[in-house]
C-alpha cells in the first residue's frame, strides 16, 4: 500500500525497517538518539530500539567512523550519520585509508558493511560548512560506493539496499529535499542500486543529475518543453559507480549532454562524465558535454547561494549553449 512521505521520513522508515529486520544493524552519530538528529531523520528510533542500537556518540567524526569499522569487523552493520556535509572531513582519513581499503587489504577476508549518511548540499540558507557537496572527494577513492537519492521513494529503497550492501556506501542525502513528498510502496521491488533512471524522456538533449539537482533538471525540462525543446532527464542515483551505459544510451539518442550538480565544476562529477561519455560517444556528440555546477570558490554565505547554485536559468543557459552547436 503506497503512502506519501517526505524524504526525511522515508529514510527514517527505511532505517526503522532495517533495525527491525536485522539485529546487527546499528544507527550511530551525534544527536541521532534522544534528539532524533538535527533533521529528525532518526526520530523515534532510539526510543523504540534502545541505546544499544541507536547510539549518541561523542563529538568526534573520526571516532564515529573508526568505531563503526570496528563494529563492522565484529559483525555489525552500522549506519553512521555525519551531521552535515562540511563535518565529514575529520573522518576522511578513516573513510579513505581504512573503510575503503580494508576489504582489499584483507584479500576479501573481511567485509565492511558500513553506511555513512551525509545530509548534503545547499539551498537551505545555512551558515558555513552546512551546504557543501563533497561527493567527488569520495568518488575518486576506490572501495567506496557513492549514491544520492533525488526523491523519497528512492531514498527509502536505496537506503535498504545500501544497508544490505557488503561494501561501504556513502549515502548523500539531499537536505533541501528532505521535506519533499513522494509515494512509497513498501511492497515494490526496487531496481539495482547503481542504475540510473530516465525520469523524463526527450530527444534533443540529455540532462544528467543526481540528488537535489534532479528536481531542478525536471523543471528545466518542463520549461524547455514549453519552448518546444525536448529534454531527456536522467537521475543518475549513483556517483560511484556511474551508470555510463545509461548515459551513453541516452546521449546516442539525444546527441547532447549537460551535467548538473551543486558541487564545484572543477574536478567534479561532471568532469568524469564528460570525459568518459565523450570517449564513448565521440561520433555521436553534436556539442561538447557542458557542465553546470558550483564555482571554484568556497560555498558562499547564504545570501549568495542562489547565485552560486545551479538554478533554472543557469541550466537553461547551458542547454541553449549546447543546442546552439
Amino acid at each position, binding site marked *: 500500500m503506497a503512502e506519501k512521505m517526505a524524504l526525511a521520513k522515508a529514510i527514517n522508515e527505511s532505517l526503522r525497517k532495517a533495525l527491525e529486520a536485522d539485529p546487527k544493524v546499528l544507527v550511530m552519530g*551525534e*544527536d541521532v*538518539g*534522544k*534528539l*532524533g538528529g*538535527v533533521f529528525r531523520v532518526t526520530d523515534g528510533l532510539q526510543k523504540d530500539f534502545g*541505546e*544499544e542500537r541507536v*547510539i*549518541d*556518540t*561523542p*563529538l*568526534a567524526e*573520526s*571516532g564515529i567512523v573508526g568505531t563503526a569499522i570496528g563494529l563492522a569487523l565484529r559483525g555489525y552493520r552500522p549506519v553512521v550519520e555525519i551531521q552535515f556535509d*562540511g*563535518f565529514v*572531513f*575529520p573522518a576522511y582519513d578513516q573513510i579513505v585509508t581504512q573503510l575503503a581499503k580494508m576489504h582489499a587489504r584483507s584479500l576479501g577476508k573481511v567485509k565492511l558493511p558500513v553506511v555513512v549518511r551525509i545530509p548534503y548540499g545547499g539551498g537551505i*540558507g*545555512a*551558515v*558555513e*560548512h552546512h551546504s557543501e557537496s563533497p561527493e567527488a572527494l569520495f568518488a575518486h577513492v576506490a572501495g567506496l560506493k557513492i549514491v544520492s537519492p533525488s526523491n523519497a521513494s528512492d531514498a527509502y529503497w536505496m537506503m535498504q539496499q545500501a544497508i544490505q550492501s557488503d561494501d561501504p556506501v556513502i549515502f548523500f542525502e539531499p537536505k533541501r529535499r528532505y521535506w519533499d513528498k513522494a509515494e512509497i510502496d513498501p511492497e515494490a521491488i526496487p531496481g539495482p542500486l547503481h542504475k540510473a533512471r530516465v525520469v523524463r524522456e526527450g530527444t534533443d538533449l540529455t540532462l544528467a543529475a543526481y540528488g537535489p539537482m534532479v528536481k531542478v533538471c525536471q523543471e528545466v525540462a518542463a520549461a524547455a518543453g514549453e519552448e518546444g525543446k525536448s529534454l531527456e532527464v536522467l537521475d543518475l542515483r549513483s556517483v560511484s559507480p556511474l551508470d555510463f551505459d545509461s548515459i551513453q544510451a541516452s546521449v546516442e539518442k539525444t546527441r547532447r549532454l549537460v551535467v548538473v550538480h551543486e558541487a564545484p565544476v*572543477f574536478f567534479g562529477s561532471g568532469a568524469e562524465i564528460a570525459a568518459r561519455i565523450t570517449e564513448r560517444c565521440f561520433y555521436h556528440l553534436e556539442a561538447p558535454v557542458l557542465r553546470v555546477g558550483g*564555482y*571554484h*570558490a*568556497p560555498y*558562499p*554565505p*547564504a*545570501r*549568495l547561494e542562489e*547565485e*552560486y547554485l545551479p538554478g533554472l*536559468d*543557469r541550466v537553461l*543557459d547551458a542547454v541553449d549553449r549546447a543546442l546552439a552547436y
Partner: protein
Amino acid sequence: MTEESTAAHKPRRSAGSKAGTTGTKRTSRTTPRKGTDPGLVQLLTPEGKRVENPEYDPYVEDISPEQLRGLYRDMVLTRRFDAEATSLQRQGELGLWASLLGQEAAQIGSGRALNDEDYVFPTYREHGVAWCRGVDPTNLLGMFRGVNNGGWDPNGNNFHLYTIVIGSQTLHATGYAMGVAKDGADSAVIAYFGDGASSQGDVAESFTFAAVYNAPVVFFCQNNQWAISEPTEKQTRVPLYQRAQGFGFPGVRVDGNDVLACLAVTKRALERARNGEGPTLVEAFTYRMGAHTTSDDPTRYRHDDERAAWEAKDPIARLRAYLEASNHADEGFFGELEAESEALGRRVREAVRAMPDPDHFAIFENVYADGHALVDEERAQFAAYQASFADVEGGR
C-alpha cells in the same frame, strides 16, 4: 596501587551496564558534584557572597568597584545583545543565532582577563568575549544573517574569526602561541571550546603540541553541560579539567557562572603562559540556558527543572547581589545601564536591518590572495551571464 594512576576514578556508571552504554536518563546536572566541590574555584556564591580563596584572591584583590560595575555592565549588555539577536532571528533578519545565555560570566570573566596584545580564538558562541575585545557586536551578526562568513578583521582586535568546525581553532591557537613564543613576545593566546569539542582529536593534538612546545596558550573550555542534545557524559566520564594532567599541564575547574572567579583563574593561567610556564586548561563549569541555536528544540532532550536550578545561579543576578550588598552600585547605575542596554538593542536592530546583501561578485573575491586563472575565468563567465539578463531586461 601507585602504578594505576586513576584507580580512584571509578566509572560513574554502574558496572551492571555491561554492554557499556551510558545511562542517559534526563537527570538534572545542576552541580559538578554532590555537596561542595573542593575542585571548583568559586569567589562569589550563587547568592553573591564573596568567599575567600587564598590562591586566587590575589588576582582580584586590586579590583575596584568601578571595574566590578564594568564586569556587570559587560554581562548585562552582552545578554541584551544576545537577546536582541535571538529575536532578530525570530523576525527573519538572521538565519540562525547561537545564544550565550547563561555563559556571560565565563566569557566576560575570561575576556576581561586578557591584555590587548593577547590573541583570542573563539568558537561561534563567544559573543561576550568579542564584546570584551571591542569587536562591534553587529559585526558578529553578518555570518548569522548570511552576508559573510565572518565580518571583522581578526588582527583589528586580536580576535580571530568564529570557527564552526568543532575543535579546529584549538590548533590554530596553539600554533599562534608557538609563534608568540618564537617572537619572544610577552603575550598569551586563549582558545575557547566546548564540552562537546573536548572529544575531537584536534583538541587532543593541540594539547600535545602546546605541552611539547610549552606554548603560551590557555585552553578555555566552557562546559555548558550540553553539546546540542548530548549531555557531557557522552563525552567524558571524569571532569574535563582533569584531561590536562595526562598531557603534562595543569587543569583547573572554575565556577563558570562566577565572573570574579573566571577572571581570577584566567588571569592566573595567562600569567603562567606569559611566564613561560606553558599551557593551562580551564574548565568553566556553566550552563547553556537556552537552545543550542535558534534551530534547536531542547525540550526534546532535557527537563525544564534543570534550567530552573541553574537560573538560581544566574551570573548576572549573582554579581548584582554582590554589588548591592557591598554598596558598589546604586540605583542610578542600574537605571543608566538599563537605558544603555535598550540603546544597544536598538542600535543592533537597526544595523542589522540596514545590512546590505553582498554583491554577487563577492563569490569570486578572496578565494585566493594571489589570484587563480580559473576564478578569473568563472568570474568573467558569470559577468557575461549576468549581463545577458541585463540585455534581456534592457531590450524589453
